[in-house]
């Protein structure tokens, strides 16, 4: 029987994959994808808790807001990445290194 823990483990797997992506990827768009994985893992958690644990719809509503926020974030993020590409012809984060000290 599929229960809460199954979903939580899927979510944990997504979370750790997202973190792995953050740690290993150097391309800005790729890092954004990893962040989307993390947000999705949290959403799976919220919906699973809403179904099995809490028994109310608050989790699902929360997840809808998370999706909306993610959309806004990605829009701004891509605008910034595009500007970066325009300014120095690379989407790689390692090349973003003029601020230091």
């Amino acid at each position, binding site marked *: 029987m599929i229960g809460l823990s199954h979903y939580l483990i899927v979510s944990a797997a997504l979370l750790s994959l997202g973190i792995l992506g953050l740690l290993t990827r150097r391309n800005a768009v790729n890092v*954004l*994808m990893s962040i989307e994985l993390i947000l*999705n893992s949290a959403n799976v958690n919220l919906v699973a808790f809403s179904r099995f644990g809490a028994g109310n719809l608050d989790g699902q509503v929360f997840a809808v807001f998370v999706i909306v926020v*993610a*959309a806004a974030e990605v829009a701004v993020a891509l605008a910034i990445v*595009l500007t970066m590409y325009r300014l120095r012809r690379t989407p790689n984060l390692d090349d973003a290194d003029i601020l230091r000290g």
Partner: protein
Amino acid sequence: MTAADYVFWVFATATVVSGAVVVFARSLIYSAFALLFTFFGVAGLYVLLGADFLAATQLLIYVGGILVLLLFGVMLTHRIYDLKLRTEKTQLGPGLIVAAGIFIIFANAALITEWPTVGREPAPTTKEIGRLFLGEYLLAFEAASVLLLVALIGAAMIVRRKKDA
């Protein structure tokens, strides 16, 4: 196992495997397209969890909006005739160890914790969620619209080329 259980395994496998492709793929474009299957798998999990409205939202916004944006981002930040689009990966070893540690900790937490078990039978959620949006979560709903407005203004402002005083 019931039919729903099989379906769960299909969606869960699709989600995790394509999530792994997102992270491990050598080519950026493969990561982006793998993300499609992750989003789709997650939407399938939502359906199994009785969250039909959320599943449709997931498809509409993640697949129709965010993923398209990301694809445009990929193509606009590369010379588009280069089919391979290799991206660099660094620190794969330490990263794997950290990620595995995190997975073990969180999976362990998920298994040993005594979560509340009130539960809620799957039932159509659209009406109820609509009511919550305009009732309990009215303020959050309005705040989200302000957030989208700000993101719209901000993104348009940032990418606009010419400086205009």
